[in-house]
């Protein structure tokens, strides 16, 4: 946790000067003239000396880290919800007490049940009503069940929903919401993926009614079994037939049917920490097959065996490049 330090804060312009020197130092060796200039800068004022001792502290923190380990630990997708929550926390603790009541009313105060998965992880849940949710890699949902509705808020990633009929006296609708819209299950099995600024929906059984988040001018549509679509907050995309890859992830597979290599790579990268980059020269290569997503290294090896593709890894496999063999 970051705490306030006792010494006075440094002028941002001095921190910028220090940042400039750090950049020069990390980019190339200094010439003799530059080195002299730098030595002079460091001692030219007490603030600059202080700024530079912070720079040294920073360098020492980064310097001692094993690269592969540090890279894969730190380069997790950052979480905007968390940033928002911390912002609110700071606001609350600084609180002007009278503002609190009104602020509180503006928030949804329910403690929601949060479920999430890490990169490469998959998780199956059975909800209180018997409905089942499967979370794909790197996904997060809130579950809000009350007397009026059964609501799943998909914050990130992808889910497969298998709804159960509601047994309560007054059956409640089953809803999935994303930033772009709200889907109501009409007895059904379907997948939803949040790909900000769009949501992808594919219906496997039954039907789903979709209402746009910002769609006062657009009537809700119904997507039937065997159809998929995507939509932004303002408009629906085309209705297309579902393909063999829809829901394949629930069985641990990525199904490619003449899929562009670049698309395949971005799909596979969802299940793997780090970078996978595809040389534009081979981006349009078409590939087919069933690839295991729980073992992305094996999938890459399979690719190399079947197609004229070369896989090079750096930083202990954290950073992978695909190029023409």
């Amino acid at each position, binding site marked *: 946790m970051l705490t306030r330090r006792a010494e006075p804060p440094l002028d941002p312009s001095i921190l910028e000067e220090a940042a400039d020197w750090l950049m020069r130092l990390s980019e190339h060796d200094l010439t003799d003239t530059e080195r002299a200039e730098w030595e002079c800068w460091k001692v030219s004022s007490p603030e600059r000396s202080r700024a530079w001792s912070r720079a040294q502290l920073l360098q020492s923190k*980064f310097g001692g*880290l094993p690269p592969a380990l540090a890279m894969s*630990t730190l380069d997790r997708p950052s*979480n905007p919800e968390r940033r928002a929550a911390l912002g609110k926390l700071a606001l609350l603790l600084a609180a002007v007490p009278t503002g*609190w009541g009104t602020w509180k009313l503006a928030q949804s105060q329910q403690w929601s049940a949060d479920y999430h998965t890490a990169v490469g992880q998959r998780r199956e849940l059975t909800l209180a009503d018997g409905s089942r949710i499967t979370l794909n890699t790197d996904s997060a949902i809130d579950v809000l069940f009350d007397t009026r509705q059964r609501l799943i808020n998909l914050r990130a990633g992808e889910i497969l929903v298998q709804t159960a009929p509601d047994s309560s006296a007054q059956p409640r609708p089953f809803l999935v919401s994303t930033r772009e819209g709200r889907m109501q299950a009409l007895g059904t099995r379907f997948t939803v993926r949040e790909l900000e600024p769009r949501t992808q929906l594919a219906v496997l059984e039954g039907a789903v009614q979709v209402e746009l988040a910002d769609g006062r001018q657009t009537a809700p549509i119904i997507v039937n079994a065997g159809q998929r679509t995507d939509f932004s907050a303002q408009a629906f995309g085309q209705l297309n037939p579902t393909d063999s890859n829809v829901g394949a992830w629930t069985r641990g597979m990525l199904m490619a049917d003449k899929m562009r290599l670049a698309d395949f790579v971005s799909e596979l990268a969802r299940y793997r920490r780090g970078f996978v980059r595809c040389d534009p020269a081979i981006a349009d290569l078409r590939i087919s097959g069933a690839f295991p997503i729980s073992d992305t290294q094996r999938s890459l090896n399979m690719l190399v065996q079947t197609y004229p593709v070369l896989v090079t890894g750096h*930083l202990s496999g954290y950073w992978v490049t695909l190029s023409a063999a």
Partner: protein
Amino acid sequence: MSESLSANNDNHLRVIEALYSGHHGWLYATLKKKLGNAMDAADLAQDTFTRILASQVTAIEQPRAYLSCVAKGILVNWYQRKALERAYLDALAHLPAPEVPSPELRFVVLETLHEIDAMLDTLPPLVKRAFLLSQIGGLKYQDIAEQLDVSLITVKRYMKQAFVQCLMLVE
């Protein structure tokens, strides 16, 4: 001036005291239910009150809703720490044997990673990634520009933004 400050402070302490005696048990039980773990729940409940104690709050209208909110923020932080630890253990497990640090060093590295994670937390994802590629991956700015598909000027701007933020927060 100083009198009113101290009166404010007394008031603050009274509010916290009432909050603690009236609702600590409830907060602990709520957290325990949510986390399924008594020890973590006790720690987090304590942390919540410590944070409120350190703040300047002098009146709280709806104590439980307020506590829930503060606790939720702390919980999010805690999840972040857990997520980092999981990612770390996972990365350790995938590391080739010669690169695995000694047990003592493993803890030191984890603590440093926590600090760095907190410093970089509020940066936009691309800025953070460019910075990590440079400072940890050892990549040149030109290579980072190619990796991220942005211009060299943009990478330099990202680097400066990240360095200034780190210099502001490092301790």
